[in-house]
């Protein structure tokens, strides 16, 4: 039988099959503060963690981005994670650890995400790790408890879906715009329950960071997972990462990873073809990521699909030009767009200019923050008047002290514009980091393609080149 890459990873991890489900071995189990329910469950039953050495924790969701907004309740959640992981002998990156960051940024950075692995985490955006050719998906608390105790998980094989992206992304567009463009095309239910595989020239051309952004947003299409088969870009990015295999062991691993591609003629339950050349900078106008349009477009009339309830919540009316919508603040960060290249793209827009509205930047990890300080792009953000916060989930989710006030409109690089996601009554417009920078400079949603971009100091650009190419 001709197999997809997910079929191959599945077959290599199937312990047994019963009643149409497979018990899959889990290579990496990632934890964050939300894991407390699962620890309570195994604790109550007196169970041990089967493989603490394959389990890693990190404080992100409740980590404050500023000491000023730190609060006791969040601190308790972080302490609970430290106590639970310590009790079971699990390595965890707590506050103050230089390896700490958002789970989907920090773990790949440390070399814990590798091709061909089955990776789970009690977080829907676990799909991010598929960028490396891993089969990665989010699970719930009962499943987290199951994996802690057995290092395995019952799964039904998801139907396969292939999204082929041909051509080249135009100037001023990014993997984020591509993701929003696809969601706009197929809808938030367009890939429900499917294992999505990305293919095509535009995907091969993406950097690892771009692939992570795209796989991350795949969950917003309803998919179970997103995957990009590993290639030279992947191997180059992984080489030398702290916890990745080293030397000859790495080379042997690469030999085996090269087999991780779908057979020609493998079957897909769904196929979608996208022309990258049609992608424009995208902006959401509603309360679901599928409610999205190019920045040159307008908010749709209720009669033309402009969901009246969403428009009411967002304080918009049909027909308004997207690029005339004033914003109150901006946010750059999250597991979607909190990586070095994201900050760099925003810095090119911000350099030498002053913000019109407040902008909060929370680097995706302490490592990203360190690199940005070293290369000088953190200074660009500060000089523009942005708040340079500590790393964490920050304004992506209103649970760590960061909040958008009711009625406030925020241009955000995060992944969900759901009602109340950034705080009760908050209005979120999703877009790319460069677009958020453009909006924060203009005080309204703006087309970044119309702005002049700064050439950054050699250090910033070459730093990126060195990292991407090493």
């Amino acid at each position, binding site marked *: 039988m001709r197999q997809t890459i997910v079929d191959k990873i599945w077959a*290599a*991890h199937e*312990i*047994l099959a*019963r*009643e*149409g489900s497979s*018990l899959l*071995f889990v290579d990496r189990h990632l934890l964050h503060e*939300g894991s*407390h*329910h699962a620890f309570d469950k195994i604790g109550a039953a007196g169970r041990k963690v089967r493989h603490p*050495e*394959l389990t890693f924790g990190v404080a992100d969701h409740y980590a404050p981005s500023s000491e000023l907004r730190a609060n006791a309740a969040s601190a*308790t959640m972080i302490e609970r994670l430290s106590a639970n992981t310590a009790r079971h002998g699990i*390595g965890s990156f707590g506050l103050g650890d230089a390896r700490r960051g958002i789970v989907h940024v920090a773990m790949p950075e440390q*070399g*814990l995400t*590798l091709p*061909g*692995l089955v990776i789970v985490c*009690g*977080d*829907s955006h676990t799909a991010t790790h598929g960028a490396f050719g891993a089969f990665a998906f*989010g*699970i*719930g*608390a*009962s*499943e987290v*408890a199951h994996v802690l*105790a*057995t*290092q*395995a998980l*019952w799964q*039904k094989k998801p139907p396969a879906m292939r999204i082929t992206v041909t051509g080249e992304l135009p100037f001023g567009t990014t993997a984020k715009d591509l993701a929003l463009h696809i969601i706009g095309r197929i809808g*938030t*239910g367009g890939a*429900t329950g499917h294992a999505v595989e990305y293919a095509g020239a535009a995907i091969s051309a993406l950097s690892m960071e771009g692939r992570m952004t795209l796989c991350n947003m795949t969950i917003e299409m*309803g998919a*179970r997972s997103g995957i990009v088969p590993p290639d030279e870009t992947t191997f180059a990015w992984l080489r030398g990462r*702290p*916890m990745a*295999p*080293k030397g000859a062991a*790495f080379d042997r*691993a690469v030999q*085996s990873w090269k087999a991780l591609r779908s057979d020609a003629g493998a079957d897909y339950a769904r196929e979608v073809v996208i022309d990258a050349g049609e992608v424009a900078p995208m902006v959401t106008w509603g309360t*679901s990521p599928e409610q999205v349009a190019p920045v040159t477009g307008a908010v749709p009339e209720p009669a033309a699909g402009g969901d009246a309830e969403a428009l009411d919540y967002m304080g918009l009316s049909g027909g308004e030009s997207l690029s005339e919508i004033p914003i109150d603040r901006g946010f750059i960060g999250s597991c979607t767009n909190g990586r070095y290249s994201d900050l760099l793209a925003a810095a090119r827009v911000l350099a030498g200019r002053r913000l019109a509205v407040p902008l909060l930047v929370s680097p995706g990890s302490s490592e990203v923050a360190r690199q940005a300080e070293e290369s000088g792009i953190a200074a660009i953000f500060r000089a523009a008047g942005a708040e340079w916060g500590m790393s964490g989930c920050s304004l992506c*989710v209103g*649970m760590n002290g960061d909040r958008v006030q*009711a009625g406030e409109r925020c241009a955000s690089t995060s992944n*969900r514009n*759901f*009602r*109340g*996601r950034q705080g*009760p*009554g908050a209005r979120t417009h999703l877009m790319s980091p460069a677009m958020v920078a453009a909006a924060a400079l203009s005080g309204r949603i703006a087309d970044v393609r119309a702005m002049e971009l700064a050439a950054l100091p050699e250090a910033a650009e070459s730093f990126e080149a060195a990292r991407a190419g090493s």
Partner: protein
Amino acid sequence: MQPFTTVTGPGVVLDRDNIDTDQLIPARFMKRSRTEGYGDQLLRDLRFDEDGEPDPAFPLNRLAEPPVLMVAGKNFGCGSSREAAVYALVDHGIRVVVAASFADIFRGNAGKNGLLTIALGDAERARLVRFVERERASAELGRLTIDLETQTIAGEGLETIEFDIDAGLKRRLLLGLDELSETLEDEPMITAFETRHFAERPWVVPANR
């Protein structure tokens, strides 16, 4: 887990698509332990206004008796994987959610907490919506009976609706079985697998931990 055999009670309609888990249980309420209960926070920001006053127009606030079944639109439970969204529904007394479609992770979480999720086609879902809406307008709340064994939803004056369910899940729900205790019986197979797996793929165990 509480076994699921037959459940009887009123229904409620939340006729929207994309009811995400951030709405089912807003993130700021997720610090609670399981024993404290999540029922009062179900759909908190839709049910109550900023001052904590219930919105009288919201369907869940109009019922004299808590519903056992909720009917919604497409892509129910999308978004965050938080299992607390299921806790909020279950703690509020809801044992069955009927929707046009469900988000994957939510559906898995539901099954592990005794919450039955039923995907129905448009025509049947519309019939159920009509039944619930009509009954709500009458003085006495109409009751629905959801029978897992026969896989049916019945009510007086409602043409009985049949639904599909995964065989393994049905068995566990009927018996109130927890998946984990079952898997532990397969432990020798896990051990045998691991020996092979680690030998073939030494990189699975990370370097420099």
